[in-house]
């Protein structure tokens, strides 16, 4: 081999050694995680290779998820933005990275954001602010985290609240609509019941007057009595329906009220019935609890009225009202909250009772266990009681023994 060729080969070997050294250095650097991309010069072209490693999964996640993710400096310069963020702000990538975050914050949120940023410098912060895209305000929830010492930036995750805010607006509007409808219904019910009762009053008044003024055969008198009874039944029905409507539409204002007073009020409403049936109503000393007084008085009145109505023939009605505090765990009812304590108020009587299988049925609207001729009643009273119990965040349970008596218990959560 001549010396020129030898020189050429020596030079090639030296070049190759250098290239090999560089390659080995690169591989070491890659192994050590110091680089994740590199350029290779091929002829006159420069090719860039980025490394796919365990970080790949994070990259894909951040770039593709439906939340905004950005990195900013202490001064608010955006050094990184994922696709979602700049698309949310309708701003191209080039306009976003390298721009100040304040460019995208709505004037009304600048102070709040600055406060969040200051707090984040010590660790993290979260809050609601408004961003802006042109003239449009975008409500968002931001979560800021300082990435020191790994990176000299604050990372921010941005959640778009537009849909949530919109839903809240729709909900508020529907609530208002519902309140209006309720109010209309309440006034409609009042007027309807008032105007419906007036002709009934006349039917009764004039029928009775006819019987006063003229002497009729027993049969004709009987017919008139039936007219009068029918009118009375209808009056009671209208009255009950009005009460039921009130139980459903009245605004519930709770106050701490002495239940003993409520029982006294109920008894005064039922004064005539009590005298007529010679009923004895015994009340244990009852507590003061949070109730809607008008509704709770209706509740007690309905139950006392029932106890007197459904008394055993020739047996003086004896009604006992008592109360106790009980653990939710001990109550056998699907609505009983095991974590709560309840006030249990019992109204027990010695009346005709009922069969166990009907314990739930009796609370259904228009459900009765007896015919019109056996006992009067609209089938609405207990449905009203059930609604009132529910209005008080509680529930009612009925227990009865046919021929012996019944006990109705209301459970109201103890605050």
């Amino acid at each position, binding site marked *: 081999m001549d010396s020129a060729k030898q020189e050429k080969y020596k030079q090639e070997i030296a070049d190759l050694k250098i290239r090999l050294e560089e390659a080995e250095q690169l591989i070491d650097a890659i192994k050590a995680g110091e680089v994740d991309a590199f350029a290779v010069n091929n002829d006159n072209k420069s090719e860039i290779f980025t490394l796919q490693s365990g970080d790949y999964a994070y990259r894909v996640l951040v770039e593709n998820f439906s939340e905004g993710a950005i990195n900013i400096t202490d001064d608010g310069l955006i050094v990184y933005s994922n696709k979602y963020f700049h698309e949310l702000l309708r701003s191209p990538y080039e306009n976003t990275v390298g721009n100040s975050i304040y460019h995208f914050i709505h004037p009304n949120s600048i102070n709040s954001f600055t406060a969040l940023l200051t707090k984040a410098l010590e660790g993290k912060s979260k809050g609601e602010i408004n961003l802006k895209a042109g003239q449009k305000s975008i409500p968002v929830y931001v979560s800021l985290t300082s990435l020191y010492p790994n990176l000299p930036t604050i990372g921010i995750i941005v959640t778009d609240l537009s849909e949530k805010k919109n839903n809240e607006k729709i909900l508020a509007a529907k609530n208002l609509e519902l309140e209006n409808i309720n109010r209309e219904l309440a006034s409609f019910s009042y007027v309807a019941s008032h105007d419906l009762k*007036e002709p009934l*009053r*006349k039917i009764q*008044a004039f029928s*009775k*007057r006819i019987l006063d003024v003229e002497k009729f055969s027993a049969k004709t008198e009987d017919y008139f009595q039936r007219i009068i009874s029918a009118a009375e039944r209808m009056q009671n029905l209208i009255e009950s329906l009005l009460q039921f409507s009130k139980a459903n539409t009245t605004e519930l204002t709770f106050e701490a009220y002495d239940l003993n007073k409520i029982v006294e009020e109920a008894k005064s409403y039922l004064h005539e019935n009590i005298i007529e049936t010679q009923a004895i109503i015994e009340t244990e000393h009852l507590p003061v609890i949070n109730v809607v007084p008008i509704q709770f008085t209706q509740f007690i009145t309905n139950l006392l009225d029932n106890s007197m109505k459904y008394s055993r023939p020739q047996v003086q009605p004896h009604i006992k009202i008592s109360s106790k505090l009980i653990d939710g765990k001990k109550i056998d009812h699907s609505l009983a909250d095991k974590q709560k304590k309840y006030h249990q108020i019992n109204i027990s009587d010695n009346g005709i009772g009922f069969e166990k299988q009907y314990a739930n049925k009796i609370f259904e609207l228009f459900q009765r266990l007896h015919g019109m001729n056996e006992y009067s009643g609209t089938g609405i009273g207990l449905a009203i009681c059930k609604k009132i119990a529910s209005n008080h965040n509680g529930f009612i349970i009925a227990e009865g023994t046919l021929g012996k008596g019944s006990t109705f218990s209301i459970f109201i959560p103890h605050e």
Partner: protein
Amino acid sequence: MNKIFLIDDDEDDQLFFKDALELINPLLQCDTAGNGKIALEKLKNNDSLPDLIFLDLNMPVMNGFEFLTEIKNKNHFNKIPIGIFTTSNIIDDIERTKNLGAKFFFTKPSDFKVLCIKLRNLLKEDFTNEDFISIK
């Protein structure tokens, strides 16, 4: 007591009332008006004033509350004792009419015999004192 004035838009109640008065004292005169406005007109145009006024609450054009308020300013008429004759038994109504100067609050009974008894007792009252009578 010679003349009674009933202000009530309900013709059936007017009939009942007149029939009851007829039984209690056939010599009693009874004039009627269908609402507060007509009542004021009649009072102005009439030579003799009534001795007692029975006033319904729910009437068109001018209701009972409005009539009570109006008549306070009419010195010629505001000495005539006025009482309420209504289907209502609401405590708020009783209070309100009492404060507007009504002398009694009579809730209309549906039984004619009861109306006669209560009306007869009411007519025996002397309305010159300050007492307020509530009849249910």
